[in-house]
């Protein structure tokens, strides 16, 4: 089967629709299909097919769509028929605006002369192809305070109005970032509060790339899996660990991944199979060709189904017994301290582990647990936060509010400690004293070597808490 088209809007694949209200919708571009955007109108799939992903459109009164430069574009490519409402007027209104907004007393609905009836009338008149723009322009006319506002608040005002009336939309390729944006709006809980930047950080710290073989716990229902498969370009293998009888990767239903490709690049395993691989292996009696041809239709299909199941399960059990995974990535509410003892041995030498949690405290506990585990080098908790800015030249500033959380990531590197321990050059003493007489400590009986790795950056610290008398 073929991969979906990443560049051009193509029939029979899914796409993400962005609306002026910042709302989002995932649609299936069925041949001859019709898409309804509620109050933003309807359009036909065939009218958007062939344009590039990322293209914005406006729905005309006759139900057809025309491409527009961008959703935030304020004046249409086509000039409004109504002379008074054309670009010049808008420009004039803008240039009349006061330098600041000290004269604005109330930007409420009170100062708008346009009634709902007026708006409906305009909507129904349908004379112009730019109903939305028309309504907005009328509203500006009817808005006594408008020219007293600063250009900036006018822009904001226009944007709010556009969101309400403009029948525009943008068609985006559904990559993992867009899928994540969609679920952030729709069902944030499913993402366990994870932010885009945290997902990005995890994919990099776990070194996800084409050809890798990864062990993944993904409680989001497939977002992490999709992001990894995208990075890998479906080269390599992800072994998805799940806690129920069947794995949940329902988010992939929007992702148009050909079945055979998915079959090849994703395998499933439950925790029981990880903990007790040999018990879970399936003994399956393989029949000879003759015996198979002797089976009647239904029996035969059943035989092949069972054979495939046995092969699949035995294959994942083989990979668990082989271990040497290129990374372990975990996004789950299961307590990692309870499964890490089984997982750490499965990760190859010098490969990363990467554990997500909504809560720093959860990762703190894991890190404390790893302090005395010499198999994970330099485990640390990372946090990353992106602050968006209002991006208008001359008025650049951080937005007033943003989502407060986005999760935390614990990452470290699997290493192979020396069985009998190595004499470490100690750190337990102050620098000066150590230099005078190099001390030697057993790595076995303390977490010193660990603390050395972790704490060396913090110069004013810490293994020794000295509390002076008085």
């Amino acid at each position: 089967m073929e991969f979906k088209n990443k560049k051009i809007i193509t029939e029979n694949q899914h796409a993400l629709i962005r609306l002026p209200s910042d709302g989002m919708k995932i649609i299936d571009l069925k041949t001859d299909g019709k898409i309804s955007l509620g109050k933003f109108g309807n359009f036909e799939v065939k009218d958007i097919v062939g344009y590039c992903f990322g293209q914005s459109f406006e729905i005309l009164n006759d139900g057809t769509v025309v491409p527009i430069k961008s959703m935030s574009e304020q004046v249409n490519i086509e000039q409004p028929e109504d002379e008074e409402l054309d670009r010049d007027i808008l420009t004039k209104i803008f240039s009349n605006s006061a330098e600041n907004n000290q004269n604005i007393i109330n930007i409420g609905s009170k100062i708008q002369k346009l009634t709902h009836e007026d708006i409906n009338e305009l909507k129904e008149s349908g004379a112009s192809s730019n109903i939305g723009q028309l309504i907005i322009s009328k509203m500006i006319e009817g808005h006594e305070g408008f020219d007293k506002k600063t250009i900036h608040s006018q822009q904001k005002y226009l944007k709010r109005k556009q969101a309400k009336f403009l029948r525009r939309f943008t068609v985006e390729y559904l990559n993992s970032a867009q899928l994540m944006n969609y679920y952030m709006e729709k069902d944030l809980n499913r993402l366990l509060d994870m932010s885009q930047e945290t997902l990005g950080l995890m994919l990099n710290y776990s070194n996800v790339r084409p050809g890798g073989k990864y062990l993944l716990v993904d409680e989001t229902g497939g977002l992490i899996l999709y992001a990894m498969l995208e990075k890998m370009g479906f080269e390599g293998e992800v072994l998805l660990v799940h806690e129920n009888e069947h794995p949940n990767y329902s988010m992939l239903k929007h992702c148009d991944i050909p079945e055979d490709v998915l079959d090849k690049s994703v395998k499933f395993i439950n925790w029981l199979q990880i903990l007790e691989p040999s018990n879970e292996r399936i003994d399956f009696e393989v029949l000879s060709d003759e015996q198979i041809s002797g089976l009647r239709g239904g029996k035969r299909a059943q035989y092949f189904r069972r054979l495939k199941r046995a092969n699949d399960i035995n294959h994942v059990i083989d990979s668990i017994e082989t271990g040497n995974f290129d990374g372990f990535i975990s996004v789950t509410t299961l307590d990692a301290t309870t499964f890490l003892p089984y997982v750490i041995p499965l990760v190859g030498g010098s490969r990363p582990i990467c554990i997500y949690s909504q809560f720093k405290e959860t990762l703190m506990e894991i890190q404390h647990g790893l302090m005395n585990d010499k198999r994970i080098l330099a485990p640390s908790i990372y946090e990353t936060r992106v602050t968006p800015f209002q991006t208008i030249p001359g008025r650049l500033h951080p937005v007033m509010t943003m989502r407060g959380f986005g999760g935390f990531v614990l990452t470290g590197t699997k290493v192979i400690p020396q069985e009998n321990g190595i004499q470490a050059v100690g750190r337990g003493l102050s620098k000066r004293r150590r230099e005078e007489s190099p001390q030697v400590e057993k790595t076995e009986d303390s977490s010193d070597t660990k603390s050395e790795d972790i704490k060396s950056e913090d110069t004013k610290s810490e293994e020794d808490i000295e509390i002076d008398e008085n």
Partner: protein
Amino acid sequence: MRSQNLIAMSFFEYKDIVEEGDLVLAFISRNDIKPIRVTKNAILNTRYGNFLHNDMIGSPYGKQMAGAKGYGFIHLLHPTAEMWTISLPHRTQIVYTHDSSYIMQRLNVVNGSRVIEAGTGSGSFTHSFSRSVGLKGRVFTYEFHEPRYLEAKREIEDHGIDVNTFITHRDVCQDGFEIQVPENFHNGDNKINAQVIFLDLPSPWIAINNLNNVIDPQMKVGICCFSPCIEQVHKTVESLQENGWVDIEMVECRGKRWEARKEMVRDVNDVIKRLKDIQSRRDHGIESRKRVKLEQQEDKEAGVPRGFNPFGKGERVKEGDINYSWKDVTKIESEIKTHTSYLTFAFKVPLIIPE
């Protein structure tokens, strides 16, 4: 015979065993990772001991390796783009993982992506891009400072990332991005067709003017300009608008690192007990605090336990010492980056009229 190929591929796949000629990152501490080329009879000298390359050959990656004298150790790490970023020789400011990972996530840099990067600088992001786009993708990187260009070129070849990364010595503001694209770097049209642009140079607003002929004309293209000053952002946004880029948004990305620590639980009731203890000792004939101190000093030397001392006052107590009670806490790293650069994102969607 060892496979020359595999050795040069370490940024694209893991190896299990260290071989002669490998690039190994000798991990001493998080702030001290030494990239070494494993060479017969060579020695790595560190302040924690000396390490024989001969002992590394044949060892598994990830191994904790003892010094030649039997004490001190390092870990033999396999190179990754992220480890390289924290161990590379700095020739310029570099892009760190918090920024680069977000940029690649937002611009959807994946297997097969075609990327333009200017300037190359120390090649930190170059390695990360190269790893992420894989053998099907391509990275076109530009550097106008000749010594830096030469150094980066040598490194790119040395690390084997030249299979997908092509560096050009060029001032991209003056002379643009168009090049004679090497044979296996284009799809038969001699074009770069970049889908992702990353500009980390002082005047991105000039370079933006030169992008029109080098971006993929059939696809939505993303750009990120990385500038430390807000004035640069201002000019960049205007240039992006003039050049038809849309969905322009500037953001800032901040990373922090936390460590799990332990804080001693100090109960006020223990303080009371201790005060009482001191009092009673004083009542038993010791007149001055001086005497107490002297006695404690003597006690210590003689190994005699002194009075009730719940918090190890005056002693060295190791964090987590089982003789005391502790609670788990986290502490942020001692110095955090408050500002790396502003990230200005934008997109360009070519208008293709179907049929």
